[in-house]
């Protein structure tokens, strides 16, 4: 299948610190790709380059063959890329409902937005129960679900997930990944998942990249990587 997202030789950093030194990767349309690596490897930076929050110093990002160069983060959301950020970046003093509405900020179709809120509460029933609650008062797992639902409210073609399992119990991790897989199947979403929990990420993805010190050090079909013990020992600490 054609590639929905392409990163070509991306370099990026923060001031004098170089965080990515020539990262290239592909996410085929309709696929699930995992991006693995230890702390500080550059995973979040990669997603933020795609989302237009960090400007690359070299290289190009393309969505469905079209370069995203020069587009602001708002234009990138409108073009069909949503990110579920790490670290519970919700709007704490807005209700669950308003967090969902603001997820659709780039859209103008009121009826469609109302319908999608229904769809989201179908996937995440807990959000319906907490509808009027201030988002900041919800548990970590509930906030993670709200973040995923908020990102989906933009009706993205490509969903970027940054460590969705972080800080959650194994049971909740399983639940969230089950929903992610269902979303992928039912909503025809293409997914790029950043994880440190390599076992879970390799189990759901078709293809994976391993990042170290801002460079891709290994890549391959997820099943192959999962079976390679030496690779797992070297880069994934598992």
């Amino acid at each position, binding site marked *: 299948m054609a590639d929905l997202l392409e990163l070509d030789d991306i370099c990026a950093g923060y001031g004098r610190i170089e965080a990515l030194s020539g990262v290239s990767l592909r996410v085929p349309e309709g696929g699930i790709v995992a991006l693995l690596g230890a702390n500080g490897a550059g995973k979040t930076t990669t997603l933020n380059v795609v989302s237009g929050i960090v400007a690359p110093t070299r290289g190009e990002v393309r969505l469905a063959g079209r370069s995203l160069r020069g587009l602001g983060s708002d234009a990138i*959301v409108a073009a069909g890329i949503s990110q579920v*950020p790490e670290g519970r970046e919700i709007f704490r*003093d807005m209700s669950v409902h308003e967090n969902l509405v*603001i*997820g659709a*900020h780039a859209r103008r179709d009121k009826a469609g937005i109302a319908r999608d809120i229904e769809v989201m509460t179908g996937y995440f029933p807990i959000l319906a129960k907490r509808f009027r609650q201030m988002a900041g008062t919800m548990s970590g797992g509930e906030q993670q679900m709200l973040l995923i639902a908020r990102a989906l409210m933009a009706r993205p073609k490509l969903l970027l997930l940054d460590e969705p399992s972080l800080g959650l119990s194994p049971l909740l991790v399983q639940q969230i990944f089950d929903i992610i897989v269902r979303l992928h199947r039912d909503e025809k979403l293409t997914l790029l998942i950043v994880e440190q929990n390599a076992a879970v990420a390799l189990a759901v993805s078709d293809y994976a990249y391993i990042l170290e010190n801002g460079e891709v050090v290994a890549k391959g079909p997820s099943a192959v990587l999962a079976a390679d013990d030496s690779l797992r020992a070297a880069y994934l600490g598992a």
Partner: protein
Amino acid sequence: MNTEIVFLFLQQGIASGLVTGSVYALLALALVIVFRTTDVANFAEGEFYMAAAYLAFFLIALVGLPIWAAAPAMVVGIAVAAGLFQRVVLRRVAAARGVSVNLVIATLGLSYVLKGFVRATGFGDTPRSFPSVVPDGSVTLGQASLSYLDLAILGAALAVMAAFFAVFNLTRTGRAMRAVGMNRRAAQLVGINLGRTERLVWIFAGGISAVAAILIAPKLLMTAEMGGVVTLAFAAAIVGGFASLPGAVVGGFIIGIAENLVGLFVSTRAINVAPFVIIMLVLIFKPQGLFGGRLRVRKV
């Protein structure tokens, strides 16, 4: 002092305090919306207000516009100027070195530029009075007496606040403004344009300051230093918690009423002290301000 006079003074102090307080509330609102969304304490707020009064004066006295045309033209002019300041100056300062302190210093610079500009025209040297459109006369409420102008000031200020609250809480634009204030990164990720939203906030702040100026100008003498009144708006904002819109409004009324009560019960010379006593009391008993909610530690 017998009880009858105490009651009379109380009523008059509260009534007059609501009028001056409504102007402080508008200025505090302008300060707080900018601070909430952009983390910048706007030290040019008083000079927006001063420039607005002079712009109205120029349009009326020199261009010869009738006040009903000059007032809206002036409000739009100041709002646009505030937006330009964000676009041309603040955006560059932020891009060069995006620390809050530098942005605050930029607003301080603007305040000097505006004061210097008004002085350079020569009109800022002598105090000038501003014509009132409201007919003379007064009404009595209980035992308090307020002029028509006072009522017009209070009514217009309340209307502007209500309109802004509606925009802020009920519209898509207002939601974007609140979102940027709550979590900039998350706001970017849901597709909000940070620059445009911040610019809009500055435009609103400029417009609100300009309204405050046109309302109070007929009661004051205009000088290049009249922006000093912003100290009271800062006091109001601090009393309210500095990040809360209702807090700014309530803080404005509290400061206005406190000034008037001190003037009546103590001495007019003690008026200047009143806001600082209130600030100290608030900081001692509720350090986060009346509407401050939880205390948050900020990374600077």
